[in-house]
């Protein structure tokens, strides 16, 4: 019986829920729509609890760093303080705001979002530009025809997107657009079709219990 609950039941549930969702797509009825909407709400709730697990894992990792006095453990305090401050300010902001959203302009949460989170987030992505460029310098050296094509396409698209490129040669934007709209599009289309077909194959494998990696290892 224990084996049934641990091994067969998950496969059975995946089949039942999967087939229900699949069949309801082809049944244009309000009940079918209701089933879909209800399932989406269920998924949102389950994902919310899964997020708690992720947060617990993060806090546990930093707690261990502090407990063991590992190098740089002081920064883990920063994470803890920042997390709980944002959490408490957000809960208070959401409770007192008129719309019920903590992001309402004028709340403490909104202030922290605009003045702490947004600048750090955009700077983090901005500095990635430097590292992408340096990685590209090492990776894109024209060592073979494939790398050369990649390099040329990247340079042409970059030159076509900035006023400097147009100042050097007026046709750069046209070439860039052609690469994006024709060659890039055909590649993207091939990738999309490949991914789509793989998704269908994977969905069938899950529905029929062939794909079981979501169950993890062990008993």
């Amino acid at each position, binding site marked *: 019986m224990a084996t049934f609950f641990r091994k067969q039941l998950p496969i059975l*549930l995946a089949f039942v829920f999967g087939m229900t969702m699949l069949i309801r797509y082809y049944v244009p009825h309000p009940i079918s729509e209701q089933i879909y909407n209800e399932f989406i709400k269920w998924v949102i709730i*389950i994902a919310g609890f899964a997020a708690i697990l992720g947060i617990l894992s993060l806090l546990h990792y930093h707690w261990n760093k502090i407990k063991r006095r590992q190098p740089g453990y002081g920064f883990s305090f920063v994470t803890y303080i920042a997390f709980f*401050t944002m959490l408490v300010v*957000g809960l208070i902001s959401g409770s007192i705001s008129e719309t019920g959203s903590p992001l309402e302009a004028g709340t403490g949460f909104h202030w922290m979002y605009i003045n702490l989170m947004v600048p*750090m987030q955009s*700077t983090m992505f901005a500095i990635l530009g430097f590292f992408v460029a340096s990685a590209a310098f090492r990776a894109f050296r024209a060592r073979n025809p494939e790398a050369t094509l990649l390099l040329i396409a990247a340079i042409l698209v970059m030159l076509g997107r900035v006023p400097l490129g147009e100042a050097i040669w007026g046709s750069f934007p046209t070439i860039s657009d052609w690469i994006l709209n024709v060659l890039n599009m*055909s590649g993207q289309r091939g990738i999309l079709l490949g991914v789509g077909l793989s998704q269908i194959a994977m969905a069938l494998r899950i529905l029929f219990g062939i794909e079981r990696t979501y169950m993890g290892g062990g008993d």
Partner: protein
Amino acid sequence: MNIEWGVIIAGFLTLMMFSFIFKDNPFFKFGEHLYLGIAVGYYVNIQWFNYMRPNLIEKLFPVLGPPNEATLATPDTLSFPDPNYYVLIPALLGIFIILRIIPKFAWLSRVSFAVYIGGYAGINFPMVINGVILPQLVAATAALVFVDAVNKLAFLDGINTLLMMIGTFCVLVYFFFSIEHKGAAGFLSKIGIYVLMITFGAAFGYTVMARMSLLIGRAQFLLFEWLKAFGLNLGA
């Protein structure tokens, strides 16, 4: 003078994050850990107020949510929807996921994952066919038209359509691993690789430009907003 503390702090945090360009240092580490804590705190709040509260808490305790719209005009007879106890099922499935931290009950999370992944597989199946595969196939097999609507010669448009058709076909041949890439298949898959390389190059160029745009945005903030908070007005 009204001191804009928000702008001043944002500027210092921007510089802290930028300091990583030189090398890893305590200022960046501080900023990095601060960002992590704030981002997680932000995410929890958004998750709570936008998803968990309306979909779980307010369904179990309707008095915490908005009243019935019909009764809004008459506050004396304000009424709330009936509780929906069905949401206890996904809540229980969610608790099963949290139980992964207790090895003895970790297997229970399989049930939750099965419902989640199985359900989504069923949703995805028809949606991918109708939303991705068929529209992309229709677009990839567009008619080769060498004249436009007013019968004007549009030779280049036709050539472009043909190039896209060939490119897509060659990429698909490259992704088809059931046959050995030799002879004609090898030739076509080689062209597929070239098309993919151009696609990746274009995507890379686009990404770098997006990052540069963010970089310019941060530089503008420092020069025109942050310095202004200290009384240095550089214009713009």
